[in-house]
């Protein structure tokens, strides 16, 4: 036995131990459930199920067993898909939803339910698959010009997911009474009432698994970088496309059968890697096995904790998986991901002052429109002063809040992107707005009649707790960007899972939560608005002295250290600044995320490359985006209002995609 194969055998041993431990726990709980039934049951009924008239046997045969099989199948498929994604995209954060597949599927189903219910008769699975494939093709098309560079793909996937999710949110806002079914579906319920879904899923998964078997060897060679693999005569783009297609198909089949099940695709490959399965073929074997055991265990836990189906399994995986991931983070090996975000350098503008002037003029124009032009009971009006005066107490605070929140999120986004050197980063990714939102949502549902002070207190508590957790985590591993992002995403997943559960209940309180979560400005008072403006201005002033750090940090840790920057202190300060700005923005107008992602990019793409110019430019652009979104939201469907955060995404998303395409050309 060579040393290498001994290590491989040792690793496989650890992975199998982990899988065995998970399986034992799951089997134990399941035996506990079944014990009573098995004692009293007539076994002939199980062996001849078609004459079953004993209801206990029927439940065992048509509900318990298919649910067990489904948890194994779905878990394995998601684990495999996650392993392929993470390997192909060279990003440990990649998961089956990264390429927009599940968001696309959900959008297709929502739209079909509302506008073409006849199509549902033909099979919801096919609609879901169509949506998943459509979104994925769009993502690939966006990133195609850039030889499918991993980061470009993930970024495109993120934007398309966000867009699909936003459109679904808008539809939900106006139809939440009808769509509760979609959200149960969307939150991954494993309940079965016959073998139909198992027999649907099994053959489809089998075909993909065979295909993956053929891809395993070329994928292993691609562990080298692109150039190295090309030298070995591999058509890297074809192989990457084939592998991604297989992974998307796996995810789409699972989504179409049981809905979105969060985190298994992220956690299973990570657990496999941590337990020693590092090489490609080990990953392809152990990630699905661990995924299957993980979902089985989660599903059994869900069934023993709640006798009713108030928490769908797909949501519970997020609640269980996220803390697990946070706990595992310090043990994750640092993977030196080459930073390819700036492989196509932007033209640096020679005239930042000209651009600044144009931006300010734009801001003034937008401000005037937002305050003075709008729909009333008698149609569109451009108000003169007399008409405007009684409207100003309503419009003024909204516009001011939109301006401040846009600026704060943009500055926070610039800080985070510069600090982490990751173009996917945004305030949302830091988890602060998720934490604040979590506090608010829990309060609205825990207290029968929550008042505003209580809601605000809950939001503050939520963001502070998150900030504290992030600081603790960051402290332990010198603020490694990768880990912070992973932690933030984990929090975001918990939050969106919680919202999905709440929407699924069809509870009328959802009508209050949804507008808040999606960034509505209509609850802002003038005091709130002035406070927001003050914090935004103060934040911007405090950020200006950090310009040197922001110029050097993206160049990498060693560069920063070599010019004498204390990594720990500089990152800590930037983190606190970004978190405070995000918390303030979240407290005022809910959990927006797209502005913080998009405004810094837009500033950079306008040629504002210097940290200072980018910060100010992003702040102005962020303010403009949110003011326009708020104005559109007030007027597009008058008297119904669309929250500014949702519209900012719908307006900003396609523009961002366009910029990405142009950058590629």
């Amino acid at each position, binding site marked *: 036995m060579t040393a290498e194969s001994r290590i491989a055998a040792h690793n496989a041993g650890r992975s199998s131990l982990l899988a065995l431990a998970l399986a034992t726990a799951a089997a134990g709980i399941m035996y506990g459930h079944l014990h009573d039934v098995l004692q009293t049951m007539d076994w002939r009924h199980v062996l001849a199920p078609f004459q079953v008239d004993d209801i206990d046997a*029927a439940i065992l045969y048509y509900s318990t067993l298919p649910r067990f099989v489904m948890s194994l199948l779905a878990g394995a498929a998601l684990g495999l898909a996650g392993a392929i994604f993470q390997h192909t995209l060279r990003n440990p954060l990649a998961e089956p939803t990264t390429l927009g597949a599940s968001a696309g599927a959900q959008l297709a189903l929502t739209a079909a*339910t509302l506008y073409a219910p006849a199509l549902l008769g033909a099979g919801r699975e096919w609609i879901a698959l169509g949506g998943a494939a459509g979104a994925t093709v769009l993502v690939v098309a966006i990133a195609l010009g850039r030889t499918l560079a991993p980061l470009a793909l993930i970024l495109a996937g993120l934007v398309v997911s966000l867009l699909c999710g936003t459109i679904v949110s808008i539809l939900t806002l106006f139809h939440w*009474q009808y769509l509760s079914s979609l959200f149960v579906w969307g939150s991954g319920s494993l309940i079965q009432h016959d073998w139909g879904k198992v027999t649907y899923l099994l053959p489809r998964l089998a075909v993909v698994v065979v295909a993956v078997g053929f891809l395993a060897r070329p994928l292993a060679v691609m562990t080298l970088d692109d150039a190295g693999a090309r030298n070995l005569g591999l058509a890297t783009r074809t192989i990457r496309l084939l592998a991604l297609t297989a992974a998307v198909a796996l995810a789409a089949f699972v989504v179409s059968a049981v809905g979105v099940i969060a985190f298994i695709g992220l956690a299973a490959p990570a657990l496999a890697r941590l337990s020693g399965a590092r090489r490609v073929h080990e990953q392809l074997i152990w990630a699905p096995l661990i995924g299957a055991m993980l979902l089985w265990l989660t599903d059994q836990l869900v069934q023993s904790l709640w006798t*009713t*189906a108030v928490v769908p399994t797909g949501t519970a995986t997020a609640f269980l998986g996220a803390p697990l991931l946070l706990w595992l983070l310090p043990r994750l090996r640092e993977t030196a991901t080459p930073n390819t975000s700036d492989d196509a350098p932007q033209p640096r503008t020679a005239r930042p002052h000209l651009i600044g002037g144009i931006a300010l003029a734009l801001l003034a124009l937008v401000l005037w429109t937002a305050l003075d032009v709008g729909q009333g009971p008698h149609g569109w009006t451009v108000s003169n002063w007399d008409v405007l005066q009684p409207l100003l107490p309503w419009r003024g605070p909204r516009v001011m809040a939109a301006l401040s929140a846009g600026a704060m999120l943009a500055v926070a986004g610039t800080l985070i992107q510069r600090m982490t050197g990751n173009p996917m980063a945004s305030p949302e990714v830091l988890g602060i707005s998720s934490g604040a939102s979590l506090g608010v949502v829990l309060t609205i549902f825990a207290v029968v009649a929550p*008042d505003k002070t209580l809601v605000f207190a809950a939001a503050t508590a939520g963001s502070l707790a998150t900030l504290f957790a992030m600081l603790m985590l960051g402290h332990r591993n010198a603020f490694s960007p990768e880990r912070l992002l992973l932690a933030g995403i984990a929090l975001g997943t918990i939050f969106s899972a919680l919202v999905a559960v709440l929407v699924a209940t069809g509870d009328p309180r959802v*009508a*209050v939560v949804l507008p808040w979560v999606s960034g509505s400005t209509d609850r802002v008072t003038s005091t709130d608005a002035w406070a927001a403006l003050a914090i935004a201005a103060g934040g911007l002033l405090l950020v200006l002295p950090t310009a040197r750090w922001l110029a050097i940090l993206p160049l990498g840790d060693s560069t920063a250290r070599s010019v004498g920057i204390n990594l720990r202190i500089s990152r800590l300060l930037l983190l606190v600044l970004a978190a405070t700005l995000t918390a303030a923005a979240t407290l005022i107008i809910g959990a927006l995320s797209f502005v913080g992602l998009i405004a810094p990019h837009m500033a950079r793409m306008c040629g504002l490359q210097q940290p200072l110019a980018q910060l100010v430019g992003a702040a102005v652009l962020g303010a403009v985006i949110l003011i326009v979104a708020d104005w559109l939201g007030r007027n597009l469907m008058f008297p119904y209002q669309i929250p500014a955060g949702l519209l900012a995404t719908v307006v900003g998303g396609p523009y961002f995609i366009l910029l990405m395409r142009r950058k590629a050309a």
Partner: protein
Amino acid sequence: MTRRTVLRMMAACAAATLPVCRVLAAPIGRRVVSLTWATSETLFAMGIRPAAAAEIPGYQRLVGQPPTPPGVIDVGLQGAPNLELLATIAPDLILIQPWQAGLRPQLERCAPVAMLTIYAGSGDTYERACNATRRIGQLMGCPERGARLVQHTDDSLSLLRRRLAGHTARPLYLAQMIDDNSVTLFSRGSLFQAVLDRLGLRNAWSGAPDLLWGGSRVGLDKLAADPDAALVLIASPELAPHETLTRSALWRRLPAVHQRRFVELPAVWAFGALPTAEHFAHLLTAALIRNFTHDG
């Protein structure tokens, strides 16, 4: 004749038997805005036309009875009404429920706000709906209309209770399908449970509710716990697909389905006030009498 047609005819019959409150809309001095469907239907049943109401097309589609009188302005979503428009309307009173309490400070800038508690996750929802009705009457300066609506609903329910006597003593599961693998089972705290109590019927499901409006989301296996119970299936809102569930093997083997002890009702909005209670009571009584002719 398809099942849907039958259900629609049943709904039409029930609506026809509904003795709609025939108070002619006498001029009410106060301009009121109703921000929830439960208060909207109460106002309409009292013969009061509000100046504005929330989500009128949605109300027409999901609640429907009593219909929205012409000339009521739509002020947008129940959870996010258009404040600018509300300020322009300048009403004398705004009606909300506790789950909208977060809106209160902003609404109070437009007009006085009255908060009416109907759903609290437990307790007697019917009693609270009666109190809310009386309170609306007082606030609107016509307490006799509130009292009359309460009396009318009480009378209807007593009449239906007498008609049901002797038809079935079985406990009932009240279920509404919302997707292809789970149902909402109504329990304590729901308006439907309160109606069951007043009709002298028993709920087969005694679990504590997970939802504010008194229900829990469960799989079909929970419908088998009481093998003697009958099953009342309330139709889902028209868009929700549920055929997958009624075609499933487990559905066909449920005792209540297998032994043909289940009835279907047309869709009913589960979060209403007295008019919804009466509507539901009529539908349920008609269906039970038709299906359980003898004490079975």
